[in-house]
């Protein structure tokens, strides 16, 4: 007997259809408005003449002897067809990759879980037309998915196949965050040995790891092994002194060990490109013409031991803006560093949840759109629109309440909201930023419930 569909499914299908209809209308409206938007039209000329435009600055990876572009293309945040779904808008993403490649951005960083597995396949398809030696491709071993050595071998050979290449220029142990899982997966199971074997066979040119753990664990990795050709760490002006990330410490340790640094999360999942109005003012007072993102990029690339800065670009505007930032790259001078520090102190006052929208927590088994809910909260925090329940119920409170509740309703499906979180805590171990997601969901749920009650 085949299971028939729950009757409510068919009803939802219809609702869905309507939603898509409305969505279609609206997105076409949005599309029209975005075409008109200034940021795009100003830089359109650069898109068109990208092949002849300036090339991004390069830096020497002194371990491999290759010149790496200072800007690398992160393949975790490609444009998608539908918000919240992994399917890549391939035509648009392909154009972005072409523009980037033609400006010298020839480092591409993909991984097993990105776009729920679709990223590797797409990158393979997109890069096929370029000579293999003209670009650098980085891929990673999904630490959490390896239960025995066969898993590791299977995954590695599948990755080569999906990316349609014979070797990876850079290969990483993905998201190391605890010594116990490292010892189990890489030492006991023997995955590290296998990867070193692959390096000997030439299927891996440079071996490194990406890191989300404690300073002690980091020290352990650098002391015990001297095999690392590079290390990828989360580095940005928000995390440099951050008590949890301690990016500054990690960077100094790598500098001491003479290991080149590749930077991930330079914008902290886009957070540093948005900031909030008061922080934005600090930057705009100094230079009204450049983007907030460019400050964050220039900050990390100012460190001399950084050889490549990854950016998960989602629109052509991102690509163009980043190429502008990294063409004839100028490090931040002393005054500019002071501006960044001032902005940071202003920004840290609002205490956003440190989510980078990496989506490692997804899919939530009970349907909560975790990064989506956090994003709504953070954005409202940034624009000071999270109502404080202790404040007087004046017009300003009503406005905040409207913006907060309506942005929540309009961006998050009602079956993906915080009240759906049952506290199973499966996401807690998956979050590289150590966010207590169930606790946050509780806070959000309670806030929304008490605001709605007042209506």
């Amino acid at each position, binding site marked *: 007997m085949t299971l028939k569909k729950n009757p409510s499914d068919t009803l939802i299908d*219809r609702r869905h259809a309507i939603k898509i209809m409305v969505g279609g209308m609206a997105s076409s409206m949005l599309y029209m408005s975005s075409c008109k938007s200034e940021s795009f039209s100003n830089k359109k000329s650069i898109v068109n003449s990208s092949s002849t435009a300036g090339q991004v600055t390069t830096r020497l990876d002194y371990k491999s002897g290759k010149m790496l572009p200072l800007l690398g293309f992160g393949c975790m945040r490609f444009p998608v067809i539908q918000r919240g779904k992994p399917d890549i808008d391939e035509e648009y993403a392909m154009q972005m990759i072409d523009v980037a490649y033609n400006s010298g951005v020839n480092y591409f960083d993909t991984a097993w879980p990105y776009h729920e597995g679709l990223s590797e396949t797409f990158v393979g398809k997109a890069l096929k037309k370029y000579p293999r030696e003209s670009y650098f491709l980085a891929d990673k071993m999904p630490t959490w998915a390896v239960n025995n050595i066969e898993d590791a071998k299977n995954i590695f050979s599948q990755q080569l196949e999906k990316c349609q290449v014979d070797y990876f220029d850079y290969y990483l142990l993905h998201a190391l965050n605890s010594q116990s899982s490292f010892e189990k997966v890489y030492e006991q199971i023997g995955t590290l040995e296998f990867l070193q074997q692959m390096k000997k066979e030439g299927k891996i040119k440079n071996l490194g790891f990406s890191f989300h753990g404690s300073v002690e664990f980091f020290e352990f990795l650098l002391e015990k092994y001297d095999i690392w050709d590079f290390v990828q760490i989360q580095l940005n002006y928000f995390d440099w002194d951050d008590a949890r990330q301690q990016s500054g410490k990690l960077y100094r340790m790598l500098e001491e060990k003479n290991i080149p640094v590749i930077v991930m999360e330079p914008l902290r999942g886009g957070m540093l490109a948005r900031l909030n109005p008061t922080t934005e003012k600090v930057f705009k007072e100094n230079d009204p013409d450049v983007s907030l993102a460019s400050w964050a990029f220039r900050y990390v690339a100012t460190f001399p031991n950084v050889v490549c800065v990854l950016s998960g670009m989602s629109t052509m505007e991102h690509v163009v803006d980043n190429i502008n930032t990294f063409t004839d790259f100028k490090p931040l001078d002393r005054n500019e560093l002071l501006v960044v520090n001032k902005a940071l102190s202003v920004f840290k006052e609002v205490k956003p949840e440190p989510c980078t929208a990496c989506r490692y927590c997804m899919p939530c088994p009970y349907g909560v759109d975790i990064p989506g809910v956090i994003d709504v909260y953070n954005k409202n925090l940034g624009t000071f629109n999270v109502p404080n329940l202790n404040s007087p119920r004046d017009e300003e409170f009503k406005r905040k309440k*409207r913006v907060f509740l309506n942005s929540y309703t309009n961006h998050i499906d009602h079956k993906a909201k915080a*009240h759906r979180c049952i*506290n199973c805590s499966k996401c807690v171990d998956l979050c590289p930023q150590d966010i207590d997601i169930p606790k946050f969901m509780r806070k959000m749920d309670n806030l929304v419930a008490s605001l709605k009650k007042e209506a």
Partner: protein
Amino acid sequence: MLKKFRILFSLIFFTIITLSFIDITGFFRGELLLLTKLQLIPALISMNFLFIALIAVTTLIFGRIYCSSICPMGILQDFIAAVSKKKKKNRYFFSKQKLVLRYVVLIFFIIALWSGFALIPAILDPYSLYGRISSNIFLPVVRLFNNMLAYITDSNETYYFAKTQVFTNGILSLIVSVITLGIIGVLAWIGGRTFCNTLCPAGTILSLLSTKPAFRLSIDTATCNSCGLCEKNCKASCINSKHRDIEHDRCVMCFNCVSICRKQAITYGYSPLFNTKKENEGKVPETETGHDNGRRMFIATAVASSITIPKLLAQDKIDRLSSGFLGDNSFKKRKPVTPAGSLSFNNFTDNCTSCHLCVSKCKSNVLKPAVFEYGLEGFMQPTLVFEDGFCDIDCNTCSTVCPNGAIKKLDHATKKITKIGTAVYAEANCVVNTDDVNCGNCARHCPVGAIEMKAQSTNGKLLPVIDNSKCIGCGSCEYHCPTSVYKAIFVSGESNHSILL
């Protein structure tokens, strides 16, 4: 002049009643919904003697003003008829009164009402028919528009509008309303007020009162040249121009004849009750005319199909529901939950004519038209479905809007302690057992604290225990339960609502 007044009043009343159904801002409440209570059938069912007397006296004095300006279904038919008149002028003709059909329908209606078989009143009551059309067709259009505005205010981040679900009433209710609108529309397009003078029980009752209203239309036989223009423009088909006769019981007071008569031979004014002699002067005696069998067939088919088609569709849904068994299916055996204020299952199902005003007004999207939860006779009557929301403990909207008295008014304090159902726990479906996780989402969201996580599961985790003396049946637990096919905790309706102390 009279016609213009009629149109003006109709437009005002129609707009207010329609807004009562499609307003999504919450502005239309309380006294503004008075017009929905001034409807004949709801007033009869709720025994609102003041409004019954008002309508009756008005009809005795002025004729069926109710049908022309207060009944929204009548006005909707006038709209359709006005469009059809643009296509083809002078399209109507006198037809003989279908008394047998009218009385049979009325008798059926009364028997059904008396015996509590509410489906027949629901199908025949013009106000309920219009209510369902508004709630199922017009309201989604308004919501669609609202959602488009929401997209615009989202893009400039002002967030003035919140997106809503467009279709909340389910596909069956929508289909029924579309069919209703289709049938009534065709009838109105062809014959004007055919529905009002054949099937409509309100029309038939008011006909009985308006055989000779004190103020009525009369044809001045001296000036009338029997041109027949009045007959061709009479939506009620009640003017026999050959005999210079108006059948007042079918006249719906549209005054089209008064304004179209080139001789000003038709006037509206006081006429003494017993002057039949004078009135019959100049009239040509009646002759037998043939029955309009085709039309009768059409009406019979229309009525039959409006009953059977939804039934067939409903059967399909039931079939799908009964297959696909996963886990403890006691959820299927639950009793339907009626809204707070309905006092008991019987009071609600006997008196509700499914106008869907409460469904339109329900902010939590929890009141939805039933399929077969109440049995065939309760098809389309609202019931609480905890799929898109749960009953807000602080909300008493549905109890304040019901024109039929199927949901009696509750104040906020009473609503909070009215027990409409009981939560039932089906341990086998609970995620604590099936997924081996901690949950407690039901207990966390219970507004009255009736659920505690204190029972031990075999895996050492906590299971909910329901305190029935506290549970009011709001369905928050069912809505928040993360199980997908059969809920591990759900609300079963109470046959008789009680007040918890």
